[in-house]
């Protein structure tokens, strides 16, 4: 089997999204914020639709709606007009402004426009955070992290350290994951700022009136205080050096702890250990019990999953976490693929599987679904693990797809998928085992009802 990355010029069925989409999602997790795209109308509408189809929640993304004329003469006037209109209509606390390919290409100096604008409006405008997100540079994850970094960089302030208070930058996780993380931190008796927080803004209750801005999100006051936390935990073994945690460390000396996205027991143990040491409290009984039950189920089912081969694809840090989890239950990851290009994926995967796997899986960045499908043919996988866009491949190979991450466009409840921690591992594990059992049962000529 060749270990060379496919090297095609064209992209077919990309395994990544564009940078500003990630930025918009990150902004959407801040209290009272409206994401704003400086570019033409189409991008915003496309992203809204893509996001809505996953969360089944409204999301408003404003746009400068640049026309050809604006593109030629510069988008400054439209940007300012758009900001005035958004402010009037939504009365946001914060506007998160992300650029698009168009405005980056025409070289709009958004920083300068905003400075002018602030002067002109004399402080009557909401907080404006800007992030540069050309899509010809990176994926939605780079956009997501860049937006988080910008927010932290622009809003966090220093001051007296707040004991027992930590920052958690979890990356792009589901609303269900976020709620669970809050519960864990609470149980450890830690005060925290989790940034961003999509748990209410993108998974709200049915209402009686349509809100201009959905309630919820990380409070701006908490973000301001991030420079005074005792530590910042960041999830993601592949995130870069320009992260929010790095900014807080450099500017305010907040201790930065980078952990893998806690999927599976091993990665979650590391997270819980960090919380124990930061809080001075042992792992709460409730969570120890959850871990115990999880391990018990691993043991009960280990034979059914052992040696099964999996292909994992999606965002890099999620792929790393999922691979760690699959490896620890005895599944053999044969291909780990991402559309991202951090340059760190293979090393990260080696770090989390090195002591379990005799042979490393093939790990490739910059992949699309054409590449993945082509490689899959020789690998004879038993299951796919990733988002909805792998479905055509699963269908072609007649193997189960374990749906995780974003986007979930062909099932309901993407926002409620739990991935993280012992509880998330339990949910994933049951899904994986049962998918394998169901496949065997469906394929059987007898149709047994007792294993």
């Amino acid at each position, binding site marked *: 089997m060749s270990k060379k990355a496919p090297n095609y*010029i*064209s*992209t*077919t*069925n*990309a395994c*990544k*999204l*564009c940078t500003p*989409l990630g930025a918009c999602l990150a902004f959407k997790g801040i209290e009272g914020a409206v994401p*704003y795209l400086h570019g*033409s*109308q*189409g*991008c*915003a*509408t*496309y*992203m*809204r*639709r*893509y996001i*809505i*189809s996953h969360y089944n*929640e*409204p999301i*408003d993304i*404003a*746009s*400068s*709606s640049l*026309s*050809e004329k*604006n593109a030629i003469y510069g988008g400054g006037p439209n940007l300012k*007009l*758009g*900001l*005035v*209109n*958004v402010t*009037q*209509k*939504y009365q946001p606390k914060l506007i998160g402004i992300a650029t*698009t*390919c*168009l405005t980056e*290409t*025409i070289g709009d100096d958004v920083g300068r426009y905003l400075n002018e604008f602030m002067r002109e409006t004399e402080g009557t405008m909401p907080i404006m955070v800007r992030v540069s997100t*050309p*899509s*010809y*540079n990176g994926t939605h994850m780079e956009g997501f992290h860049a937006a988080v970094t910008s927010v932290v960089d622009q809003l966090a302030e220093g001051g007296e350290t707040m004991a027992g208070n930590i920052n958690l930058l979890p990356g792009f996780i589901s609303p269900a994951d976020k709620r669970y993380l809050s519960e864990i931190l609470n149980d450890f008796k830690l005060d925290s700022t989790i940034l961003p927080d999509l748990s209410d803004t993108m998974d*709200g*209750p*049915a*209402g*009686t*009136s*349509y809100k*201009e801005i959905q309630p919820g999100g990380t409070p701006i006051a908490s973000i301001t205080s991030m420079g005074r936390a005792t530590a910042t935990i960041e999830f993601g073994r592949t995130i870069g050096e320009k992260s929010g945690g790095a900014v807080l460390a450099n500017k305010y000396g907040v201790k930065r702890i980078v952990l893998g996205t806690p999927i599976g027991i091993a990665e979650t143990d590391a997270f819980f250990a960090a919380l124990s040491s930061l809080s001075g409290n042992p792992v709460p009984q409730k969570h120890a019990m959850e871990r115990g039950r999880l391990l018990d189920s691993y043991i009960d089912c280990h034979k059914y999953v052992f040696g099964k081969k999996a292909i994992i694809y999606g965002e890099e840090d999620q792929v790393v976490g999922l691979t760690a989890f699959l490896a620890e239950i005895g599944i053999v990851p044969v291909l780990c693929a991402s559309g991202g290009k951090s340059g760190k994926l293979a090393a990260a995967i080696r770090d989390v599987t090195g002591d379990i796997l005799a042979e490393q899986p093939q790990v490739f960045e910059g992949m699309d679904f054409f590449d993945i499908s082509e490689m899959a043919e020789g690998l004879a996988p038993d299951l796919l693990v990733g988002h909805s866009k792998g479905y055509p491949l699963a269908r072609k190979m007649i193997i189960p797809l374990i749906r995780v991450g974003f986007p979930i466009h062909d099932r309901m409840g993407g926002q409620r998928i739990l991935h993280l921690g012992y509880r998330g591992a339990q949910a994933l594990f049951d899904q994986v085992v049962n998918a394998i059992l169901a496949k065997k049962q469906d394929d059987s000529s007898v149709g047994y009802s007792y294993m």
Partner: protein
Amino acid sequence: MEGMLADRQDQVHRTGEQPFTLVCNKDSLAGAVSQRACVFCGSRVVLYPIADALHLVHGPIGCAVYTWDIRGSLSSGSELFRLSFSTDLQEIDVIFGGEEKLYRALIELIDRHSPKAAFIYSTCIVGIIGDDLEAVCRRVEAEKGIPVIPVMSEGFKGNKRAGYTAACNAMARLIGTGDTAGISPYSINILGDFNLAGEIWIIRKYFERMGVEVVANITGDGRVDDLKRAHGAALNVVQCSGSTMDLAKIMEEKYNIPSIRVSYFGVDDMAQSLYDVANHFGDKEMLEKTKKIVQEELTRIMPQLQIYKKALAGKKAAIYVGGSFKAFSLVKAFRLIDMQVVMVGSQTGTEQEYRELAEITDPGTIIVDDTNPLELSSFLEEKEVDILVGGVKERPIAYKLGVAFCDHNHERKEALAGFEGMLNFAREVYSSVMSPVWRIKK
């Protein structure tokens, strides 16, 4: 209306209250969260169902990835159109130009898939970096011997409508290049139906039962070879106000093919469409056959429709769709099941269309062009709407307010056209409006 951006007020009209005025086809207002997409989106949706062509999006990844497999257009053969091809431009391409990458990507993809033709879509930044699409297309065409057609769909060059025009211009380059021998004098092209959930197959069957030959289903389950000989048809039957009217015009000018405008939604409009085609050909036997089809179909669906009608009578509906032609048919369709339309809007209607809508709706109905979520939600509340008809972006707005919803956009998986489509439509409305979930206290 309170809270409406001042610049948007002239894009909303209330029937019966003042003389009709509505400003439309205006660029979306900066900062207003329009539900509209871009030129590229318009082109992409029209050309998408040409199933055996390669559709390559020249630009950064997003434009391509957001249009991957998002439509419910079905094909009876090739599935090539459902793949999302992109040149995925990188920084270096933006700086030095993307022509070479486009050329190499095209060659690679044509070798891999042997398509019958290729459409190359231009996106915003391609318009800015100034790649010469035309030149690359000509070069590849010469090398590969298939039509390679640029679609000038830079997103910022207008709204969806401009995208329709660009798509029509692209299709016009294919038409007229094939052999038209053996085409019946009673022949048509079907324009502007996208074969969502197999709708064009329903419609085709009616025409075939009438004795009409369909030369090309241009925009639904389309085939390059059919398009090439589409100029041999005697009549263009055009659905949708915006998307393919330009193509019909071009074909009228170039090949003298007349066209009629139809709609396949709702019983009245469906029947009228078939009659219009029969009348156009003026063939007595065909007219008889048509009457029989309409009769048969009505006898089949009416009893079932009664059940829905009884339950839904008096309920209030709001309509917000892409093109306003759909709005007309929907107004009538709701009438057929005794429902009351209290709001109608579209993303891309013309003033004339809105005027006509104002004429056929009850006094007090809100007519709106290019609305946004906040406005829409306030209309739903104000009019105490029972069901909203719209697309993906409108759905969560309705649901959040506890308003039922019927999907009438390009993603849907339910056939709503034709006589049986009316039944499906009524069932869709019924199954949302009548759900017990709305009774649970919030």
